[in-house]
């Protein structure tokens, strides 16, 4: 790299026009393409969620008929899982930040990266196309359980194909990141000097690469059965519905870690930056990601404890599920310990990270209930599960996503978001989230099944509370999004390193130039978070 007298134009200014965006090879622009496409789907699906809550405000019909409700929760689930949360953090912030964090100029295969985004868009068209013609959107739930998914007359085939195509997008992103991490680290950065977000992307990428093909095959099998009548899963033509459930969860359980691990990575970036001290237990956090990714492959059966599974199978799936809790707990302890003797700058990204820890703990503890054989028999397929997975995916992963959005906002746009408004949005989101989902946990314990258009009168009170919560949450979301848009256009100019971070992305300008670094970034001495201004502490054992 040659030193130039003039600063290079930033990556927004480097080229102009729509084609320079949708055919861009720049990882930062691809990250933003994902941000806007994924963000749009999130808003749509969140709207559907609020609509469902509205229907559930009172027993009986409030605003739609049962078939519509079933289509709405299917679409909500499909969008949230396949179009939003699985790609979310890796595709947006992985793309934007990974090369910056590694001190390099792009991912290993920029063209493959662009292809991933296009596959994402094509998959999205399939998913939405299924709504507008024929018998209307699928009504199977996002799990497409056979034999119902084989029998129903709705447009299951295109929805399933959409998930198949999106799977490829995910595989290619994973592949790209693995190669990037192995080959493109800045000179001097060993694996143990990588920022923890990079570690989490690395663990995630292996899951994307190894688990996603299984769902691809499974989904194609559904298409074969629906279109050609080959008896695979439908017992009336000689198939086995339980086989479907196994194949589905062999992917979809590890997919939970595709959602959770990158979120944990984000939290591991945000906490040391705002505590202004090194992360506590770097290796414990890094290696526990790998442990979660590994053990996570072998626990899928916990979704099937009531399917007629044999005792020994239940025994093994249950105990392995409990083991996943251990590396997760280790991470939580290390994050909290990182606050100890920090010099904490309380800012919105940190609040989101701490809210992540709180919500994710509830998600994890309710996961223990679901992993316990006896307890699961009672709460399986009830609102307890709906509460649990929203605590993990929304209270956990999405809160981390919002945290990352505020954390890197000044880096991406060179502007600062309006801080007071962001605080208000955060409080509304956090309160609204818990008012919406905590009652669901209680409803589940009382025995209200999920995917219920209507419910018995004894469940009315808590359903009302939950619906009120969804209004608080929705107002928080709207304020947050509007605030970010306004700040993007009119926000105050942000310095290159507003948080005094020491990972490499803070060494370049905001927004970064097309090739990321005008001059070679310098690695901090003694580890990625070893703050030079902090008092150094000699380990005694």
């Amino acid at each position, binding site marked *: 790299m040659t030193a130039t007298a003039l600063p290079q134009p930033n990556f927004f200014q480097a080229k102009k026009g729509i084609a320079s965006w949708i055919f861009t090879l720049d990882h930062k622009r691809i990250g933003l393409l994902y941000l806007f496409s994924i963000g749009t789907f999130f808003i749509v699906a969140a709207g559907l969620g609020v609509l469902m809550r509205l229907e559930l405000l009172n027993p009986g019909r409030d605003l739609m008929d*049962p078939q519509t409700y*079933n289509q709405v929760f299917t679409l909500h689930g499909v969008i949230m899982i396949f179009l939003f949360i699985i790609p979310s953090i890796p595709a947006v912030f992985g793309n934007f930040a990974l090369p910056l964090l590694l001190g390099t100029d792009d991912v290993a295969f920029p063209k493959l990266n662009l292809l991933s985004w296009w596959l994402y868009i094509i998959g999205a068209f399939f998913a939405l196309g299924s709504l507008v013609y024929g018998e209307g959107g699928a009504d199977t739930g996002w799990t497409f*359980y056979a*034999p*119902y998914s084989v*029998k*129903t007359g*709705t447009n299951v085939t295109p929805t399933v194909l959409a998930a198949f195509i999106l799977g490829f997008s995910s595989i290619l992103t994973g592949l790209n990141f693995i190669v990037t991490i192995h080959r493109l680290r800045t000179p001097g950065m060993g694996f143990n000097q990588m920022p923890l977000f990079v570690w989490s992307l690395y663990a995630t990428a292996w899951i994307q690469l190894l688990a996603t093909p299984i769902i691809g095959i499974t989904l194609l099998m559904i298409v074969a059965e629906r279109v050609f009548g080959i008896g695979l899963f439908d*017992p*009336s033509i000689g198939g086995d*519905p*339980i086989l479907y459930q196994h194949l589905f969860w062999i992917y979809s359980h590890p997919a939970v870690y595709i959602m959770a691990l990158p979120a944990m990575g984000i939290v591991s970036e945000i906490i040391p930056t705002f505590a202004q001290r090194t*992360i506590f*237990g770097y*290796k414990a956090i890094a290696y526990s990601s790998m442990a979660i990714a590994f053990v996570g492959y072998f626990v899928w059966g916990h979704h099937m404890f*009531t*399917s*007629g599974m044999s*005792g020994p199978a239940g*025994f093994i799936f*249950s*105990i392995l599920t*409990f083991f996943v*809790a*251990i590396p997760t*707990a280790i991470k*939580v302890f290390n994050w*909290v*310990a990182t*606050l100890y*003797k*920090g*010099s*904490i*700058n309380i800012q919105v990204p940190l609040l989101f990270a*701490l809210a992540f*820890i709180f919500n994710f703990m509830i998600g994890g*503890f309710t996961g*223990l*209930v679901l*992993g*316990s*054989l*006896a*307890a699961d*028999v*009672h*709460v*399986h*397929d009830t609102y307890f599960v709906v509460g649990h997975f929203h605590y993990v995916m929304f209270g956990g992963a999405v809160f981390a996503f919002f945290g990352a959005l505020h954390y890197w906002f000044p880096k991406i746009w060179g502007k600062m978001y309006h801080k007071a408004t962001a605080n208000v949005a955060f409080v509304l989101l956090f309160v609204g989230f818990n008012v919406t989902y905590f009652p669901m946990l209680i409803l589940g314990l009382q*025995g209200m*099944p999920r*995917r*219920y*258009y209507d419910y018995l009168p004894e469940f009315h009170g808590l359903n009302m509370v939950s619906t009120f919560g969804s209004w608080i949450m929705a107002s928080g979301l709207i304020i947050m999004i509007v605030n970010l848009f306004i700040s993007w256009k009119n926000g105050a100019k942000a310095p290159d390193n507003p948080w005094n971070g020491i990972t490499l992305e803070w060494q370049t300008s905001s927004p970064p130039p097309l090739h990321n670094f005008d001059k070679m970034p310098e690695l901090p001495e003694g580890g990625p978070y*070893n703050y030079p201004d*902090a*008092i150094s*502490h000699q*380990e005694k054992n």
Partner: protein
Amino acid sequence: MNASNFVEGVDFSLYMIMGISLVFLIGITVVMVYFLFRYSKKNNPVATNISHNNTLEVVWTVIPTLLVIMMFWYGWTGYKPMLTAPEDAIEINAIGQMWKWSFEYPDGKITDSLVVPIDEPVKLNLISKDVNHSLYIPAFRIKQDVVRDAGNMMWFTAQKKGTYDILCAEYCGQLHAYMLTTITVMDRSDFDKWLLTEPDLSNQHPGLTILQRNACLSCHTRDGSRLVGPSFKGVMGTSETVVINGEETEITVDRAYIIESMKNPNAAIVKGYQQGLMISYEQIISAEGMNQVVDYLETIK
């Protein structure tokens, strides 16, 4: 007394896990919030880099490990007895079909809701005629999927008299939320009396009895309103547009058409309705029964 023999084991593992969790949740949250203020920029202007502490790492690995093994163990011991029903259990077939439960007793009695004697083990053979369902009795803390041809079963001993809800916990299509019935627990003597009293159906049209027994009415109404299938009201003699192999044809609804629809429900579909939701009744309803059904349909105008 608990409502069933499984309440104790399930509730114990539930409350144990939730109790331990609550201690950790509150403890960690309090520490987190305390640190946030104690070590804020104002209260602690200079941070200290503490990179790790091996003793702590070991402590907070070992303690959770022991706790989760204990949680696992009570989950397993609460669950294990559910797997094998006692030899002397009363066997009842529990049949799930979109969107109706029915129960078949050893002497052939068939009912819409379940009635069992108190303090005797009862085994339900779970039979699905179509898609997956899941039989769930929240008060008894039991649930088991009802999967076609899978041969699943569940068992319990009811310990408290009363009537409790039975719900379907596995999504099974449009009216999943309405696939409800009840279980009533009574003394043995009352149960024996109940078994012997057949509901008096002599005044009821035999065709209607067949419709009720076979879940027909969960999809076809008798009052003209629309559910998953066309209403039965005044259907005989009307002309309908049906789709056969993708082609639209005009037909008249007569005896032959109705009987053919019961045997091959998906061959001709009335325009505007979905294919694939109705099962074939060829092996289930006799030829005589099918004629009685048509006789009955002729009476609802």
